C-alpha cells in the first residue's frame, strides 16, 4: 500500500486536464505510439469533439521514481462540467490527493475554486500545477501568487508545466510520489469498496470502477451493494492498464480497479454506493452516498413515428452506460409516442441527444426543457410537475414553488455591472459579492433554476467575453407565478412546444417562440399562422406567407442525375419534418424554440 498513490486532476474547463493526463500516460509507457491519440481518456466522440470529459476514466500507471522504487499511480479523470459535480465528488473521494491544474494565462476560475472546495471536503492533499507555461500570455508568477494568497496553498509545492510540450511533467510525477500520502485502510477488515463510476460493455456487462477502502475482493466471492442490498457473484477483478483491463487475483485496500459481476443494468450500480461481502458485511456504508438528482426534464420523440421502437431500444442501451439518465413513456398529440427524460443539466441533455442521433441514427425532437415545480393544490396536497402536459387546472392550485439554485460566478471586476444586470433580469435574489483575490469578484446569487437552464450560461459567457465562470448547487424551493404557454400552428395546439414559464417572462417568451418558428418553418403551399397563448388568450402571433411556386425550370439529359439528387435532398428534408395538422415543421424549428434570442 505504501507504493500506491490515488489521485485526480481537477481543473476549470480547458485548462488542459486531458492533455496532462495524455502526457503522464506516455511518460509511463502505458500506451504504444500506435494506440495513442489525443485525449486518451475521452472515449466518446462527443468528448473529443467538445474537448470535455463526460464519463470518469481511470488508468493505473506504473511509475519508477527517482528513489528506484516502482509505484502504482492511479489517475482518476473526472468530468469537467457543473452538470456532473456529484460524479466528480465521488471520484474525488476515491483519492488521497489531487493535482489542481491552473492555466498560466487565465488563472484561477470558478470551477477551479468549486473543485478545490470539493477536494478539500474530501480531505485531499493538493499539489497546485500551473499549466501552459509555454504560452506567450502566460503569467506563472502572478498565478502562483493567486494560488498562495487566494487559495492558501503552499507555494513551494507548485509545479510548473506545459502539458502540450511535456515540459515539467516528470517533476509532477515525482511530486505525486513525494507529497501525496499513500492510501490508508485495513486489508484484513470487512470489505468496503466505493463505487465511483460504471461503464457498460455489451459483452461483459457492467464494469464497476471502484476504490477499495478496506478489505480485499477476488473472483468467486459474493458481494452486496449497500444501497439496495443487491447481491452478485464477482467474476473478475483487475486494474485499468492503458486502453485495456488487466485481471488480477485480487484487489486490496488502497487500490483502484474494476469489478465484473454479471450486472446487467447499470442503474443498479450507483456512484457513491458501498460494495461489501454478502457473508461478512461491513458495519456501515461509506459516507456521502446520494441518489443522483435529475434537475432538467424534456421529452424525446422520434421524428418518424416508425422509429419509436428504435428509440426505446436506443434509450435503454444508452442508459446502460448513463445511470444519471432517467426515462419513462410519454405521449403527445402532435408527436406521438416518446419518452420523458430526466437529466443532470442542459449539457447532459445535449450529450444524450447527440449520442442518440449519432450512435443510433435516429432523428429526434426534444421538447422545451423544464425544471420540477411543486404545485400545492387547494386541498393542501402537493404534486410535482416537470411536464407542461401535466399542468394542473389553475383553479385548483393554491400556490406553486420553483427550485432555486445558489450560483457562484467568478469574473474579473470590470464585468460586475453586466453580470449583476443579467442576474437581476433572471429574477436573481440575495446577491452577495466579495473579492477572493485582487481584481476578481466572486458573486453569489440565488436564481430560479428555470432561468439558468434556459440560456444563462451562454449569456454569461458573452457578457464577460468568456472570462466569467459559473458553478451552482440546488438551494431551495420558492413561491412562483407560473403559467403554461401554448403554441398554436394554424389553430392547432402543438403540445410538444408548450412550456412552463414565469408570468413575467411569458409574453416575451411567446413572441420569441413565434418568431423562431416563423424563421425556421419553410413556407408551404398555404399561409401559416403561429400563435402563442396563455389560457385562452393569444399573447403573440406571427404568420408565414404561402409559397407560390416551387419548380425546376430546366431538366434535360445532362441534368437528370443532379436534379434528381436535389429532389432527393428535398425529400430527405421532408422526412426530417413533423406534420402537425397539415403543416410540416422541421426538427430545427423545435430546437430553435429552445434557443435564446441571439
Amino acid at each position: 500500500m505504501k507504493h500506491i498513490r490515488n489521485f485526480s486532476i481537477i481543473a476549470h474547463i480547458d485548462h488542459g486536464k486531458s492533455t496532462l493526463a495524455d502526457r503522464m500516460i506516455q511518460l509511463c509507457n502505458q500506451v504504444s505510439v500506435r494506440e495513442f491519440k489525443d485525449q486518451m481518456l475521452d472515449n466518446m466522440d462527443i468528448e473529443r469533439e467538445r474537448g470535455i470529459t463526460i464519463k470518469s476514466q481511470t488508468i493505473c500507471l506504473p511509475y519508477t521514481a527517482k528513489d528506484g522504487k516502482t509505484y502504482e499511480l492511479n489517475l482518476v479523470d473526472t468530468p469537467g462540467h457543473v452538470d456532473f459535480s456529484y460524479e466528480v465528488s465521488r471520484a474525488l473521494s476515491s483519492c488521497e490527493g489531487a493535482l489542481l491544474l491552473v492555466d498560466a494565462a487565465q488563472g484561477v476560475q470558478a470551477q477551479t475554486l468549486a473543485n478545490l472546495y470539493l477536494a478539500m471536503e474530501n480531505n485531499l492533499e493538493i499539489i497546485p500545477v500551473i499549466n501552459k507555461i509555454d504560452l506567450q500570455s502566460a503569467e506563472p508568477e502572478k498565478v502562483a501568487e493567486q494560488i498562495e494568497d487566494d487559495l492558501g496553498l503552499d507555494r513551494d509545492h507548485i509545479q510548473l508545466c506545459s502539458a502540450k510540450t511535456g515540459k515539467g511533467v516528470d517533476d509532477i510525477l515525482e511530486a505525486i510520489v513525494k507529497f501525496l500520502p499513500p492510501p490508508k485502510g485495513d486489508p484484513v477488515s470487512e470489505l468496503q469498496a466505493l463505487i465511483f463510476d460504471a461503464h457498460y460493455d455489451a459483452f461483459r456487462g457492467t464494469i464497476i470502477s471502484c476504490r477499495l477502502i478496506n478489505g480485499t475482493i477476488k473472483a468467486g466471492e459474493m458481494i452486496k451493494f449497500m444501497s439496495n442490498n443487491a447481491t452478485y457473484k464477482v467474476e473478475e477483478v483487475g486494474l485499468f492498464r492503458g486502453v485495456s483491463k488487466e485481471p488480477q487475483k485480487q484487489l486490496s485496500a488502497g487500490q483502484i480497479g474494476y469489478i465484473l459481476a454479471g450486472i446487467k443494468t447499470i442503474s443498479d450500480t450507483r456512484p457513491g454506493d458501498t460494495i461489501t461481502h454478502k457473508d461478512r458485511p461491513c458495519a456501515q456504508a461509506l459516507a456521502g452516498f446520494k441518489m443522483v438528482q435529475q434537475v432538467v426534464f424534456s421529452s424525446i420523440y422520434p421524428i418518424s413515428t416508425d422509429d419509436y421502437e428504435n428509440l426505446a431500444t436506443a434509450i435503454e442501451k444508452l442508459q446502460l452506460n448513463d445511470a444519471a439518465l432517467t426515462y419513462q413513456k410519454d405521449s403527445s398529440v402532435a408527436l406521438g409516442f416518446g419518452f420523458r427524460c430526466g437529466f443532470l443539466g442542459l449539457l447532459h441533455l445535449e450529450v444524450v441527444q447527440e449520442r442518440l442521433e449519432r450512435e443510433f441514427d435516429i432523428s429526434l425532437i426534444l421538447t422545451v426543457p423544464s425544471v420540477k415545480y411543486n404545485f400545492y393544490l387547494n386541498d393542501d396536497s402537493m404534486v410535482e410537475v416537470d411536464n407542461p402536459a401535466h399542468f394542473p387546472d389553475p383553479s385548483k392550485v393554491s400556490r406553486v414553488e420553483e427550485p432555486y439554485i445558489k450560483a457562484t460566478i467568478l469574473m474579473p471586476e470590470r464585468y460586475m455591472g453586466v453580470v449583476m444586470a443579467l442576474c437581476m433580469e433572471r429574477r436573481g435574489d440575495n446577491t452577495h459579492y466579495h473579492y477572493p483575490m485582487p481584481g476578481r469578484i466572486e458573486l453569489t446569487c440565488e436564481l430560479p433554476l428555470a432561468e439558468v437552464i434556459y440560456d444563462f450560461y451562454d449569456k454569461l459567457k458573452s457578457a464577460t467575453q468568456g472570462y466569467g465562470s459559473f458553478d451552482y448547487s440546488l438551494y431551495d424551493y420558492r413561491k412562483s407565478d407560473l403559467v403554461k404557454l401554448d403554441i398554436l400552428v394554424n389553430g392547432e395546439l402543438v403540445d410538444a412546444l408548450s412550456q412552463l414559464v414565469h408570468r413575467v417572462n411569458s409574453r416575451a417568451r411567446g413572441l420569441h417562440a413565434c418568431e423562431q418558428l416563423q424563421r425556421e418553418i419553410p413556407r408551404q403551399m398555404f399561409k401559416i399562422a403561429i400563435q402563442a397563448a396563455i389560457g385562452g388568450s393569444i399573447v403573440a402571433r406571427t404568420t408565414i406567407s404561402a409559397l407560390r411556386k416551387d419548380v425546376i425550370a430546366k431538366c434535360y439529359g445532362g441534368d437528370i442525375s443532379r436534379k434528381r439528387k436535389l429532389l432527393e435532398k428535398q425529400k430527405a428534408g421532408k422526412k426530417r419534418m413533423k406534420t402537425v395538422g397539415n403543416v410540416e415543421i422541421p426538427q430545427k424549428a423545435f430546437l430553435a424554440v429552445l434557443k435564446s434570442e441571439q
Partner: protein
Amino acid sequence: MSSLYIHIPFCLSKCPYCSFVSYPGMDKLHQRYVAALLLEAQWLHQNASVSPLSTLFLGGGTPTIFSGRELAQLVSCCQELFAFSDQAEISIEANPKTINPEKLSLLRHSGINRLSIGVQSFNDKELQLLGRPHSAEDAAEAVQLARAAGFDNISLDLMYGLPGQDHYSWQQTLEQAISIAPDHLSLYELTVEQGTPYHLQRNQGLLDLPDEENMVIMDQLTATLCRQAGLAQYEISNYARPGYECRHNINYWQNGPYLALGAGAVGCVDGRRRQKTCDPRHYCEQIESGQSVVQEEECLERTASFRETVVMGLRMTCGVSKIQLQQRYEMDLDDYYGDTLIHLVNQGLVEITASHLRLTARGRSFANQVMAELV
C-alpha cells in the same frame, strides 16, 4: 427509339447565369475537338450496337460557333456511321450572332431539320445584362434567315424572371417572339445555379430578381399568350405547335436511352448513365490516346429508376404512362406509392387518369413538392 446527343462546349462568351459545360476562347482547340468527336463516334460505332437513330441533337455551348463545313461534316459522319430512321429529328442549337445565310444553308443541306435559337430576350437592355453577344434585332433576323434557308421547325429559347425584369417587359418579349411565328418555344424561368457569377451576386444581394408575386403573374401571362398563339404546353417549360414537340427532349423526359459524344456530355444506355470529362482539352487527349473519357457513372437499382422515371415523366403535361411503367419495371404505380399518391391527389396536385399520372395546373407550380414525395 434511339437518340444521340453531341456536345459542343465552346461559346463566344460565358453568360453570367450559365452553368453548362462551355468555355469561351479555346479557338485553337476547335478543329482538334471536331476530330476527337469523329474518333469517339467511330469508337461508339464499333463498340455499341446502336439501333437506327430517331433523333440527333447538337447542343452546347454554342454549336454554331463551328463553321458550317465542320458541322456538316459532323452530321454526315454520323449519318455514315449510324443508321437514321425515316423522319429522324436532327436539331442544332444556334446563337443569333453565329449564323449567316450560307452557314444556315449548309446546315439545312446536311440534314439538320430543326433549329433552336438562343434568343433569351427581345429587350436589348436585358440582353446586355445577361451578357448575350447579340441584340433583339439580330435574333429576329436570325429567324428570318433560318426560314429563308428552309428551316420549317424553329424553336426559340427565352428566359424570364431576369434581374430588373417586370411582367410588362416579359409580356413584350413573349409577344414579339410569338409575332415571328416560331414552331416551338422553350420558356425558362431563370435559375440561379451554383458556381455562376449570378450566384455570387445574389448571395451578395446584388441581383435584383423579380419577387414571387411577379413570377406568378409572368407564369400566368405565359400560359395565356402561348395558348392564344396555338402553342400548347407539353412540358413545364416547353410549348409547341401540334406535331412540333421536340422528340429528342421527350425521350429524356421519358427517361429513355440516349448516346452521347463530347466533353461533359451525358449518355444513358442500359440503365447506366455516364458523364464524360468536362475539360475539352483533357477530352481530346484521352480520345486521341484511346482512353476512356467517362468521368462519372451512375446505375440506379430498379425501384430507384422507376421513381426517377415517374418524376421525369411528370414534367410532361401528358404525364407518365402507367402501362409503360408496368411494362418497363413490372411495377404498379398505385400499389407502389399507395397513400402518398392518394394524399397528392387529395391536395389537388396530381390527377390519375385511366392511362396516366400527371400534374394538375396547380401541381405544375409546385412540381418540386410533388416530385420530392415521389422521387
